[in-house]
């Protein structure tokens, strides 16, 4: 499908001819997305093609392009770093332009004293972290890693990561923001709105940011975020990270005021108690269950292989049969990574002492092999920068996360056995990577201070093998049934699957949410800020009257 020449020309007049294209191969490079094969007909790796890709360089250009789209009825899908199937256009035959924001890539300011940075959408976490660390500051890098856009996670997506426990979710770290609505209006929020600077996200009066920045954000479905300010936090480590060693297992020296541990638990109850005790004692800088993404059966074999640059996955197979490594696997079966950081030596020693007491109280322990210098330094590098997050794909290039329903530690603990059992069952087909039933991982807390998170089951499948793709889809459907069977709502797999659903099927599902208020609210917000319906269904809404139950009695 082609965009009308008039619309093309009008957009070209704004961004310049070199920053718009409708070359089919170029469009395909945007349509090709992770997870597409799980939701598209014939297991296609392509989401619907955008009709053109446009690269604005400024807020004014975004606004100009948006106005053209309103005039011509073209849908707009902005991306920053552009990952996930929902980053692409949603529907075939729906005229959509992909707004690739990679030219908006500046760090506009770092206010060291007041601890915030102002960034454009294509600034990634690693870039900002590198800059602010020079000032002894740090950012919360989201679970998806440091190649992700800060604006995206702060303004439009989930925002939780290994540091959220100590630094807050990026939703909370969001200060002023600039938003171009689908109607083409520029809205600035918080103190920025009053012309007082970027330092505050709330008010004046009720907070306008509340209409778009919820638990998951609008994910490109309701306009374009063009700038935001993000809160920075103290960093008591190196000013410049100087990793050691050859790739891929770079190691980062552990300063004397840091401790890097992998903590193991004898059972899930001990694990939960340990989590609570860590929150209650307020220790910890980074708190995450990371290495289990490889699966509890194989995690030890994989990571001990990974840190040896001469080895490959063939060696993992050998390692997995080594009794010594099998012992490590058992020790780390229920484990997580914890990095302590102290502002003083006295502080770090006390944190260590507190941790030891917690471990003694709860029966948890340090996984010795993972706390040896090589693995500890690798863990330090991995967790501080989150630059290896795409090890998610290490087995075969296909990964899909199921479960991840968020709640208190007890809530998570209650669904974990079902998640494990279900994954064990689904691996028996041999069409998924057989890594043990527990490949769950996730943040220590997705909110500041702790107490709330979810664990995501890392399901690896081969995207180059239709049978494996089908097995993954089946696992997703199974996981939904498993969750329902234990009274838990469907998890992340449902969110992924919905991308392939028809509008009607989505509306049917949405109409079953017990409290319909939020859908009615978002529908009216959409009407107000996207009157021509140029955003997509990543911002959820429901046609008035669609299968609604009487919610507001």
């Amino acid at each position: 499908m082609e965009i009308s020449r008039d619309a093309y020309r009008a957009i070209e007049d704004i961004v310049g001819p070199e920053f718009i294209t409708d070359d089919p191969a170029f469009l395909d490079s945007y349509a090709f997305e992770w997870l597409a094969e799980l939701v598209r007909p014939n297991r296609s790796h392509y989401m619907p093609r955008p009709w053109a890709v446009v690269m604005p360089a400024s807020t004014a250009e975004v606004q100009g392009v948006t106005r053209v789209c309103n005039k011509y009825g073209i849908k707009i899908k902005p991306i920053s770093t552009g990952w996930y199937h929902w980053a692409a256009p949603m529907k075939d035959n729906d005229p959509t332009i992909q707004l690739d924001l990679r030219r908006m890539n500046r760090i506009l300011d770092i206010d060291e004293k007041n601890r915030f940075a102002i960034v454009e959408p294509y600034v990634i976490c690693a870039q900002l972290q590198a800059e602010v660390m020079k000032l002894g500051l740090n950012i919360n890098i989201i679970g998806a890693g440091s190649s992700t856009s800060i604006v995206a996670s702060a303004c439009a997506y989930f925002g939780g990561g290994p540091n959220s426990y100590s630094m807050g979710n990026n939703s909370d770290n969001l200060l002023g923001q600039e938003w171009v609505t689908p109607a083409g209006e520029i809205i600035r929020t918080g103190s920025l709105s009053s012309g007082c600077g970027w330092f505050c996200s709330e008010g004046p009066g009720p907070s306008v940011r509340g209409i778009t920045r919820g638990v998951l954000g609008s994910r490109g479905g309701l306009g374009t975020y063009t700038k935001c300010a993000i809160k920075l936090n103290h960093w008591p480590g190196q000013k410049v990270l100087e990793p050691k060693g050859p790739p891929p297992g770079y190691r980062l020296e552990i300063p004397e005021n840091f401790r890097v541990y992998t903590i193991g638990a004898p059972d899930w109850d001990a694990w939960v108690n340990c989590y609570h005790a860590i929150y209650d004692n307020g220790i910890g800088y980074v708190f995450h269950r990371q290495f289990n993404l490889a699966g509890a059966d194989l995690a030890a074999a994989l990571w001990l292989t990974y840190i040896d640059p001469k080895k490959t996955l063939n060696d993992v197979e050998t390692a997995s049969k080594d009794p010594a490594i099998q012992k490590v696997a058992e020790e780390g079966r229920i484990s997580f990574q914890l990095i302590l950081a102290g502002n003083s030596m006295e502080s770090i020693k006390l944190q260590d002492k507190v941790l030891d007491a917690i471990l003694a109280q709860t029966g948890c322990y340090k996984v010795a092999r993972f706390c040896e210098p090589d693995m500890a330094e690798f863990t330090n590098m991995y967790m501080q920068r989150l630059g290896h997050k795409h090890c998610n794909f290490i087995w075969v290039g296909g990964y899909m996360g199921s479960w991840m329903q968020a709640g208190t530690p007890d809530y998570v603990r209650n669904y974990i056995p079902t998640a494990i059992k279900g994954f064990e069952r689904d691996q028996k087909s041999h069409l998924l990577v057989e890594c043990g039933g527990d490949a769950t991982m996730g943040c220590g807390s997705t909110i500041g201070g702790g107490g709330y998170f979810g664990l995501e089951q890392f399901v690896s499948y081969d995207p180059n093998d239709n049978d494996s793709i089908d097995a993954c889809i089946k696992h997703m459907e199974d996981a939904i049934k498993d969750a329902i069977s234990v009274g838990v709502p469907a998890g992340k797999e449902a969110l992924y699957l919905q991308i392939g659903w028809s509008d009607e099927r989505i509306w049917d599902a949405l109409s079953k949410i017990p409290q319909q208020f939020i859908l009615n609210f978002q529908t009216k917000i959409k009407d107000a800020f996207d009157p021509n319906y140029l955003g997509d269904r990543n911002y959820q809404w429901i046609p008035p009257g669609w299968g609604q139950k009487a919610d507001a009695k």
Partner: protein
Amino acid sequence: MGMNSKKEELMGIVGQGNVSDDPACLNGYAQDQSFALPIKPWFVARPQTAEQVQELVKWANATATPLVPVSSGAPHFNGDTVPSATEAVIVDLSGMNKILKIDHRNKIVIVEPGVTYAELQPALEKAGLRITQPLLPRANKSVIASLLERQPTMIPRLNYSLPEPLRVCGVVWGSGEYSFTGEGGMGPRSLEDQWKIGLAQVNQQGPLATDLVRLVTGAQGTMGIVVWASIKCELLPAARKCFVVKAAQLEELVDFCYRLERLRIGDEVMILNRRQLRAVIGKTNGCGCGCGGADWTVVIGLAGRALYPQEKVDVQEHELQALVKEFGLQALDAPPEVAASLLAVSGETYWKVASKGACQEIFFLTTLDKAPRFVKTVEQVAARFEYPASDIGIYIQPQHHGVSQHVEFSLPYNPADKREVEKVKAIYTAASEELVAQGAYFSRPYGAWADLVYSRDATSSRVLRTVKQIVDPNQILNPGKLCF
């Protein structure tokens, strides 16, 4: 509909004994300590349940009756509980005063809007918990109202966002719809049912792409009526120690405070000028506040919880001492009254009005580097009106891990002295205008500030009116406030 019919219908909703049109009672709501135009409501209705609140709102929609929600006891200060429209009904929520649940494991307490700080803190203490609170809140101050107003709390390291520690709310919107905010918004609309399936109302974000709680905070009751809220608690400290750091000039403390807040040393952190420090500890004359004659004091409360509490305090003390040395300052043991004020609620006479009987406040948000300039501005305006600078109480409260600062000026005056009243009113007006012009962020635009703020911010006004139209289409909730 006439007054009598309205009264009958109101009694039908909340019960006969819970509706009042007693003039004395109504007069109590007709004005407050602010300079808001007094308007007498027609009735005061005191619902006892969320269902009654919902019925009231539906009734108000049907009868086009303005509702003004009020949860705290008097005195009120900012004009937000004074009706801006005639024929209003005050929805007095003080009777909804149950603590619905104390969840020690998840550090959450769920309360109704009538629960006050004086009631909540002792109940939490019994469970080994506490919540972060504003500086010496009125004993009858509703905890929910305080949080909805985004009153600053004293522990910046726990303030992951300005609404903290407020988490999940049950809201009766102006439309009459009832829903939960945050993580509560996706589950069944019953707390009991949510508890049964393991939900604990911990996460403030959501539901979906919306942060509903952010639409009721700072709203002055214009969007919805909160009928319960979950609040994050902390373990009760088992060890404490309080310090003061003093300086002659505010500027001398700025860099130290930046560092202190950044390192998150201590729990409570605030800056008070001499007048305000004295007021906090109830000294209206002479000194004796531990300020040592210094004009400015940073109050720092250290606390230790859970394992090794005393050692946690000791480590913080050593870090604090190292820090003050770095900045050429001294950290001294705080006088016991100062330390006690961090844990207390105000005495019967609210501390801010204790000296003269009334007090006009001017407060806004800014960053710490700009605070000295704003202090100068207010002092200069006060001087223009011959109001002594030494009478101005100044309180600077870091928030959001110290990224923003609540700066508050208290101008005590004698309400019986008309000249003094006029003088303070003039200072309030002139200073507010100058502060706004200089970039002070009036994030909670009460009374006359609303016009000052929204007249400069057409976009926010329009967006908020759009939201208001959705959640309160008939404009029955506290009409006339903010930009509505």
